[in-house]
């Protein structure tokens, strides 16, 4: 397998054999062979073989920004469903303001959506924090869900995709690594357009040169909008 070439592998399949390769994430070494243990795309970088999974539940990493739903309240924090195997925990101390322990529900109640950062991932659970910019309870806007494995494409290279969508729709967009996306614009039409654009990206996530495709898509949409406006005007 040559550098940067990707191939689809299934569990138990031998990706490469030979002593020069190192097994990375999603792979295992069995004798001379490097074997995939997950279904996804195999990739090689500097003799390190890894498998990028394209399906399955969200796996939290430290530092990820996620959007979750408050599942329950405890005496010292909130339990938050972030779509991973285990729920996240947000302690009172990780909220950057003073909170009376008896008033937890006033800050965030069951069913509220919250943007948080993954603070630590341990065997016993996931700890979340609000101590950073742009985090906190979601008060307005809309939230949509896509597969967490497609989030990298929605963000694009160095955020190129998401910043283009922001620019074209005049919306504020926060992409949670767990696949939930918060959209907030001034007008509901803008928010719906942004939603459409993101779903388009998620669906076409394996197309090459996606950023240009989305640009074209936006132009088409604006043309169509122009037509409808004209029609409306004639009436």
């Amino acid at each position, binding site marked *: 397998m040559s550098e940067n070439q990707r191939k*689809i592998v*299934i*569990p*138990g*399949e031998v990706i490469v054999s030979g002593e020069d390769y190192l097994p990375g994430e*999603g792979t*295992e070494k069995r004798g001379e062979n490097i074997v995939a*243990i*997950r*279904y*996804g*795309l195999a990739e090689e970088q500097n003799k390190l073989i890894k498998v990028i*999974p*394209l*399906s*399955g*539940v969200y796996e939290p990493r430290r530092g990820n920004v996620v959007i979750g739903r408050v599942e329950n309240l405890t005496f010292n924090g909130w339990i938050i469903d972030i779509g991973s*195997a*285990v*729920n996240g925990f947000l302690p009172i101390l990780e909220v950057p303001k003073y909170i009376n322990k008896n008033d937890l529900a006033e800050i965030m109640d069951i069913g509220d959506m919250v943007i948080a950062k993954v603070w630590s991932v341990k*065997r016993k659970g996931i700890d979340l924090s609000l101590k950073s910019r742009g985090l906190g309870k979601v008060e307005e806007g809309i939230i949509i869900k896509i597969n967490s*494995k497609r989030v990298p494409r929605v963000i694009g290279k160095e955020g190129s995709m998401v910043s283009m969508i922001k620019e074209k729709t005049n919306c504020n967009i926060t992409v949670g690594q767990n696949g939930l996306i918060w959209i907030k614009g001034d007008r509901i039409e803008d928010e719906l357009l942004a939603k459409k654009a993101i779903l388009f990206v998620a669906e076409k*996530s*394996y197309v090459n040169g996606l950023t240009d495709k989305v640009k074209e898509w936006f132009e088409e949409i604006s043309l169509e909008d122009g037509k409808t406006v004209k029609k409306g005007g004639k009436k």
Partner: protein
Amino acid sequence: MVKEFKRPDGRKVDEIREMKAKVGVVPNADGSAMFQFGETIAIAAVYGPKEMHPQHEQDPEKGVLRCTYNMMSFSVADRIRPGPSRRSQEISKITEWALSPVVMLENFPNTVVDVHIYILQANASTRCAGINAAAMALAHAGVPMKDLVTSVSIGKLNKTLVVDLNKDEEDWEEGEGATDIPITMTSTGEKITHIQLDGKISVKQLKESIELARKASKKIYEVQKSALKNSMEEEQ
């Protein structure tokens, strides 16, 4: 008297019914698959890893695999009562044991991976079709696995060994009658994860039937493999 053995549906002794496989059949599940042996159709849906409820069944060492096998009430000619029965509970457990040696849930303590298997249409070998579908669905759900498993039933009709029984053959009454041996093995045929035996058979013939299963499992593996690979290629 050397006479070629004739199977009721005219297949060769080592011929499997036409197989079909597809992944991603249940959009709401984390992973799903359909597997078909002729008129036997199974679908499997995988949910998880997710938190285990009831809590006392959690394992702090590793994740738990939980399988549920059920036949749809319309899957056979006489309507069967839906819901768990003695038979479906047994097959659920058997499926769990057949799959658990290959799934690696060490990194998901206190969680459960739920596998739901439904038989849409039954013409014998339903547990084998179910296990094949479940293995593909687990891979599709991104669950770490050592290998895929393939399952096939070997039968002894009077004295002849045949691959992939159908209902007519399962109810064979001539001579010694029918013996049904479902076997599940890893894709290379190296390890057997499940074997059952219903009937009588000699040690020699049992060994032969394992060899037959090994050959058949290679063909099944190819079907599973291409289904998984094609589904991803289509998206690209």
